[in-house]
């Protein structure tokens, strides 16, 4: 094992990265930071967000390439198949990449990068963050694409929950042993209970003292806002001392407003609007119970964030949610109005017995990004040791095994990608490309670099509130607002 632990040079590719906010973005960022801390070299490649174009440096010298690709549908870039193969080659050579890690099946940038990286001879790892169906036209198409790309070009697959693994294995027809399950984690230093003197008091008797329910998600159908709109009037009626804070924005906001107006709940339920991710914890600690009514989730980060903040968590038992927290830390309900109502009742009864600090400490031991990075590095090690035949004929055979039409199409794409990269090699040989200097991020250098880089980082944070949410990810957590 010691012989296998070596330093990898990883290029993370995804359409979804800062300054956009969401589960995938957070995952990539945290994973990259922890891998850098463990001695690997990580570079992130994504598409340009408005003015955010070119090369930027984030904390710890994490280099991000914002490529001039056109975002097409919900921050996913326009599929151009071969349009940026040359660019990817230059980046991989410059950064001395040994491995490419793509994120999210919905990201065309990641899928194309897998194909080109395989043509370049790099090893490829892919992480899927969401659950997809099998029945509608869009899902069928995407599943077929995934089957071709994951089967032929990708050496290792990671999923964020066991349910997500089952889903991905069925969608892409993969052998189950090829898929590793590495959950997301939560930055528990950021999500702590509020112990300051001005904090919301923890009630000891829920019949007389106020109890606050918190909802923090995008207000869309997939997050179960319809269920919530059915349940809120009933909850407010049964418990006169309950108040509800709803954070987040989206198309279903009108529905909630209508329900509030119809039942006269203006003083009990307040719609707070969009809450930026850096203020999510402050929003959550204003309440005692966190309610999640999602209809589908691969791994709901919001639940773990709420549990780390000390709240009692109620959620519909869909997708990967039952795997996320132990039963004594979460109240699981059926995805129906009656079930959710009953779950909220049970949660309210748990409130007096809740110890936020104890719960926070437990969550701190359960989820840790460094652990995620270590397990991911193990996947990298096994993938780097893979001796699969990656020559073009074997790749074409693997594409054809995914299906005749899809195999022919992707075989053609792979062939053209190889030819294009050969042409690029002739046009711009390896020797003509500068190698980026291996950064030395030991502490004294780090301080100096940070001082000079602070302006850049602040620029990104300043531009952060601009961008539209990445709506297309079913499994994003608390960051989706």
């Amino acid at each position, binding site marked *: 094992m010691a012989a296998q632990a070596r330093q990898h040079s990883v290029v993370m590719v995804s359409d979804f990265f800062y300054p956009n906010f969401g589960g995938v973005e957070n995952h990539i960022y945290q994973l990259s930071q922890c891998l850098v801390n463990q001695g690997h070299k990580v570079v992130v490649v994504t598409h340009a967000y408005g003015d955010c174009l070119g090369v930027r440096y984030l904390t710890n010298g994490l280099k991000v390439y914002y490529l001039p690709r056109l975002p097409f549908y919900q921050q996913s870039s326009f599929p151009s198949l071969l349009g940026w193969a040359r660019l990817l080659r230059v980046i991989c050579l410059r950064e001395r990449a040994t491995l490419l890690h793509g994120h999210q099946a919905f990201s065309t940038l990641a899928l194309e990068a897998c194909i080109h990286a395989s043509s370049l001879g790099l090893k490829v790892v892919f992480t899927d963050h969401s659950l997809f169906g099998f029945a509608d036209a869009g899902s069928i198409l995407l599943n077929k694409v995934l089957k071709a790309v994951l089967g032929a070009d990708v050496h290792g697959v990671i999923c964020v929950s066991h349910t997500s693994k089952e889903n991905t294995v069925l969608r892409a027809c993969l052998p189950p042993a090829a898929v590793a399950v590495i959950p997301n984690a939560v930055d528990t230093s950021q999500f702590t209970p509020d112990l300051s003197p001005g904090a919301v008091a923890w009630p000891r008797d829920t019949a007389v003292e106020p109890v606050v329910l918190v909802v923090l998600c995008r207000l869309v159908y997939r997050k179960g806002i319809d269920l919530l709109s059915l349940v809120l009037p009933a909850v407010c009626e049964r418990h006169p001392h309950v108040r509800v804070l709803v954070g987040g924005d989206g198309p279903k906001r009108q529905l909630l407003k209508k329900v509030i107006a119809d039942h006269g709940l203006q003083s009990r339920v307040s719609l707070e609007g969009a809450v930026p991710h850096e203020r999510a914890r402050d929003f959550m600690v204003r309440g005692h119970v966190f309610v999640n009514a999602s209809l589908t989730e691969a791994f709901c980060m919001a639940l773990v964030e709420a549990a780390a903040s000390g709240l009692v968590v109620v959620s519909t038992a869909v997708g990967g949610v039952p*795997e996320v927290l132990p039963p004594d830390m979460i109240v699981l309900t059926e995805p129906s109005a009656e079930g959710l109502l009953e779950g909220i009742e049970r949660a309210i009864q748990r409130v007096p017995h809740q110890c936020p600090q104890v719960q926070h400490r437990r969550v701190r031991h359960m989820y840790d990004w460094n652990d995620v990075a270590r397990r991911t590095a*193990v996947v990298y090690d096994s993938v780097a040791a893979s001796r699969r035949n990656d020559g073009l004929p074997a790749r074409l055979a693997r594409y054809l095994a995914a299906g005749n039409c899809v195999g022919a199409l992707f075989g053609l794409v792979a062939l053209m990608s190889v030819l294009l990269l050969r042409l690029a090699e002739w046009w711009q040989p390896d020797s003509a490309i500068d190698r980026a200097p291996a950064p030395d991020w030991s502490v004294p250098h780090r301080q100096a670099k940070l001082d000079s880089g602070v302006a850049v980082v602040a620029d990104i944070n300043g531009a952060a509130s601009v961008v539209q949410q990445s709506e297309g990810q079913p499994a994003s957590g608390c960051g989706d607002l």
Partner: protein
Amino acid sequence: MARLRSRRGRPAGAFDSAADSGGNGAAQSEPLRSGTAAAGQDPPSQQQGRANPVAAIAAAADSLPAEGSAPRWEKVLWKRQPFPDNYVDHTFLQHLVVNDAVPRRRYWPVVLASTAVTQQMSCVVAAAAVPLHLHAGRAGPMQLLAACGVLLLLGYTTCAVLGGQLLGGSMARGVRQCVLLLGGVYGLAPLLHSLTATVSTDSVVALAAGLAAAHLGLCDYSFVNSVTDKMTGALSLAAAVLAAVLVAGRMRTELETFAVVLLALELFLLSPYARRHVRRASVPAHLLLTAAMAAAATALLFPASPAGSGAFAGSVLVVTLVCPAALVRGQVFKAKISGPWDEAAPHIPRELMPRKAEAVGGAAAALPGVGASGPMGAARL
């Protein structure tokens, strides 16, 4: 467990250790040891040299570390478990359900259901053949009007007898609705006659053919098959009526136009209700009616175009016998996968969906007098 993958769905050869040369299997099935596995514990299936991932999984299940009771794998993420990250438990895909709500189709019931399509095709062909006869002079408008009157009376009687109640509540109301229908169409006939005067016949024929195809494609067949209670498919009805109006504009006199439009309205707007009553009442009568309609359409089309009538007869046979066979055969390949990853579909009551509430409320009101208010109500101009 039913077959998860069709023949086409074989896993891509990358991981099929039999397919690839070079012993990739060993490296592939190398268990990815969780970074936090207990230090002294040798994770299962660490014994290598096995190229077969299945054997590795079996080894994982067998050779669990013998430390008192063997730890059981749990499907949780919050606990660190002494299993590799890519460990596959025997409970993997335990909750997968294939084809749970898919009805099994049998040949003869599908043939029976396909008679609705035959009936609709006959209506279209009859509505197309009659203007051809009028135009060629083989029939006169008065004969057509008489036929329309007879059809109207027949339909009304069928609905009244089989529906158990008089349409519109009483005889006087029924007659009043009839008069309104006839009067309305008669009044509009001059307008409809000159509507398409500037459109060439070729365009009219092409448009009418396209609209007839759209009508057949979008028609509400489940209503005639008495599966549903309310006639939907406004678009198909509009297409049929528009085609009829276009064709009626080609007629020479306004009386002919009136007759053609009246016939089309009866066939497309009113006959579904009568046919539905017949279907609900008895299946043999329904089959007889279908055969009669098909024969009548073929006979009507024959003088105008023998080839066309032959083609129509052939297509009736195909729709009745061949298409159901294809559907039943195709059902074998259906694999509807469901499991815990599916998006939950909670029951959201009507109040939260205003548009659907009106439709449902309308259906509920129409239910007791579906024959009564339907045809005449729709014909009220």
